[in-house]
């Protein structure tokens, strides 16, 4: 107990120190220059509305493309192409006032018809638009002057948040077919050149509607898949910023390098040991509680993450507004775990398949420690590694598994516990009713209260074991400032980044 508390304290302490030190010595912004940022994989084109690949928004969202609203670096929803909006009393009519004088990178002006065309496409399930579910509640979209009106078929508190997602970006509808290779948006940078498979260069857009930004003349995103090569390239000065996939061991080395700095922010990822609630013996809540008691999460954070991470107790990361610390619901207690197993009718334990997803290093390492810990309370673990396509198809979509481990990085994703067909197989009418109510909650605050309640229920039910939330780690050259230290949305926003001596 004491050790657990101490570990949690140490993590929160280092979090505070990390962000303060970066913010404190930031000099005045300087205009000009360029910054090179590492990304990890080649995106399949550049249009976030036709592919859900996370590599696409990392480069283009906020930098090249924008939507009506967006998240700022603190995760608050703020105006982007819409300067203001109103919601009617009954929550069924949403009116957005577009900003004046917004131009696309090809010189044409943004008008309300562009916005209408966009959401007509998004709500048409045959259009190939990604995630049509985000827009399901939209009945019609209409334009009048520079006002766009959404009429909903039911109140939907999540709509505004969904409009801040990368799927909701707006580009000239007549250029839809070429966005894949030649993105045209309204953002602070225009898409200048893509060297196939190697790097993409963005250049400052002179006609950006906000004054004073961006600071940089150009930004290059270079594709470097191997984390060790990324780190070597940063040390060699070939790149200036690592914002994706910085490994914990490299983060330690960044801390010791006088030419580099490390920032640790919050991220919305929960490393989740998923239990198949449909199958014996995991369908027994006592067994799931026993498994939670058997796992010493702080050892995993130290062993797999070199201490970078916060122990959690439900499907909520500390970055979410509805976070409550539930990590002591079923604390580490192997004795209690054995008692519960005996009580559930398994005094001699049982054996489980435990499958680790091949591409994810942190999950693989954590899984190995967990397997060891489960063995100590008498659960025999048959550990194997599965390739990603197989993981998606058989485990995630087919729910053919006993245990697996994965980072759930989507923000505000606690609603997955209301879906009995989800791969956890968790079917609880109370949770389903609460999530339904949350969708129609009168305010964000009310919605957050309901989410916090759901977090408590699923923790009590020990649906899964939520192990820890890894921080968002950024490594940068000492002279680079203004980058986002948290990651509320999967974008590497370069709008306010600058270099200063």
């Amino acid at each position, binding site marked *: 107990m004491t050790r657990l508390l101490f570990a949690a304290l140490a993590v929160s302490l280092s979090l505070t120190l990390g962000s303060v030190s970066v913010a404190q010595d930031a000099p005045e912004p300087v205009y000009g220059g360029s910054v090179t940022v590492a990304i990890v994989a080649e995106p399949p084109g550049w249009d976030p509305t036709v592919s859900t690949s996370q590599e696409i928004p990392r480069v283009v969202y906020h930098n090249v493309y924008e939507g009506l609203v967006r998240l700022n670096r603190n995760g608050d929803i703020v105006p982007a192409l819409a300067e203001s909006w109103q919601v009617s009393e009954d929550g069924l009519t949403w009116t957005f006032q577009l900003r004046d004088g917004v131009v696309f990178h090809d010189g044409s002006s943004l008008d309300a018809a562009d916005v209408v065309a966009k959401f007509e496409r998004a709500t048409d399930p045959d259009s190939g638009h990604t995630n049509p579910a985000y827009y399901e509640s939209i009945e019609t979209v209409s334009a009048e002057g520079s006002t766009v009106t959404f009429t909903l078929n039911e109140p939907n508190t999540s709509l505004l948040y969904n409009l801040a997602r990368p799927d909701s970006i707006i580009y000239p509808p007549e250029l839809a077919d070429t966005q894949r290779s030649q993105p045209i948006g309204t953002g602070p940078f225009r898409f200048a050149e893509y060297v196939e498979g190697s790097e993409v260069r963005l250049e400052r857009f002179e006609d950006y509607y906000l004054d004073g930004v961006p600071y940089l003349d150009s930004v290059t995103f270079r594709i*470097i898949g191997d984390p060790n*090569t990324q780190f070597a*390239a940063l040390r060699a000065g070939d790149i200036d910023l690592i914002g994706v996939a910085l490994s914990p061991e490299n983060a330690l080395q960044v801390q010791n390098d006088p030419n580099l700095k490390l920032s640790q922010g919050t991220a919305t990822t929960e490393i989740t040991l998923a239990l198949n609630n449909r199958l014996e013996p995991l369908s027994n809540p006592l067994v799931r509680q026993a498994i939670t008691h058997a796992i010493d999460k702080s050892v995993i954070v130290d062993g797999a993450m070199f201490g970078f991470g916060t122990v959690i107790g439900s499907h909520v990361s500390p970055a979410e507004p509805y976070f409550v610390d539930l990590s002591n619901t079923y604390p580490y207690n192997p004795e209690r775990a054995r008692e519960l197993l005996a009580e559930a009718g398994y005094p001699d334990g049982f054996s489980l398949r435990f499958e680790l997803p091949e591409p994810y290093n942190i999950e693989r390492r954590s899984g190995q420690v967990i397997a060891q810990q489960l063995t100590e309370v008498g659960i025999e673990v048959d550990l194997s590694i599965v390739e990603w*396509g197989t993981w998606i198809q058989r485990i995630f979509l087919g729910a053919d598994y006993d245990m697996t481990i994965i980072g759930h990085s989507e923000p505000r994703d606690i609603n997955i516990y209301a879906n009995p067909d989800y791969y956890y197989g968790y079917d609880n009418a109370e949770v389903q009713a609460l999530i339904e109510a949350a969708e129609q909650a009168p305010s964000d605050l009310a919605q957050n209260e309901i989410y916090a309640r759901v977090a408590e229920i699923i923790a009590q039910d020990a649906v899964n074991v939520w192990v820890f939330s890894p921080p968002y780690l950024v490594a940068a050259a000492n002279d680079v400032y203004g980058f986002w230290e948290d990651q509320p949305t999967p974008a590497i926003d370069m709008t306010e980044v600058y270099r200063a001596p």
Partner: protein
Amino acid sequence: MLFYLIRRFLSALVTIFLASALVFVAILAVPGDPAEIILGINASPQALAALREQLGLNEPAWRRYLSWLGGVVRGDFGESLNYQRPVATLIVDRLEVSVPLALGAMFVACVIALPVGIVAALSRGRWLDPLLTSLAQLGAAVPSFWLGLMLILLFSVELGWLPAAGYVPWERDPVATLRSLALPVLALGLGQAAVMTRMTRAAMIEVLSQDYVRTASAKGLPRRRVVGGHALRNALVTLVTIFGLSLSQLLIGSIIIEQVFSLPGLGRLVLTAIGTRDFPLLQGEILVYASAIVLLSFLVDVSYGLLDPRIRYQ
């Protein structure tokens, strides 16, 4: 000779066809749906169905394979599911990285392996041979991705001479292209050099123990002419085989090296194609690899006749 060529050509076609069919079956056997990979795990069934229709995934597998094969015969390699661009242009773009990488590595390997292997064979029984052989053993044991990382740490991080990762296209700045290829070529070439050194040494020792070499020495020919004129000439048939096989190994080895050095080559495209179940792209790539390997082995066979006049083709 003509009859031989026709026979070889036909057997090459069968080999390539079998390779493509095998890969097609393999990718059908592993779980994973391209449409789900493109639209993500939250995609609605309706959107998935629409995309599957658009990509032609609703057709039965054998018909997809036959229509792909029919396209290839007409010179049309189809369109990549993931990139939604013609496979042929994707592959050709990547060859400008992978071909110089493999050839450069082959050059490095030959320049090291030939002299070192010959010297090791000639100094058999003295101190130099075990030293060179141990070095070659060590070189063969070191994995190329580790060697690549060490080269990056030395030449990019410590010395700052060469870029750590990335690629500059030839048309932009050829010197920069060569600089970005230098370390990968070295990492790939050194490992192969170690393997080839051992093979060259073995081939030379074999030839040096032949009767005609003893006869040549006995009749008083200078050592240089015995080695250069008699031994090396006869060892060439073996060496050409080894080098031909090595080049195919380099093509495969470049998949890992391209990953370490972040080069946009054919190897990385293969990994992407497998990850996204992009079967037209993968089929096209396998076709290129299989053709390259078949062509190499054909060239090796033909060269035997040039190197050894006793060999005739029937």
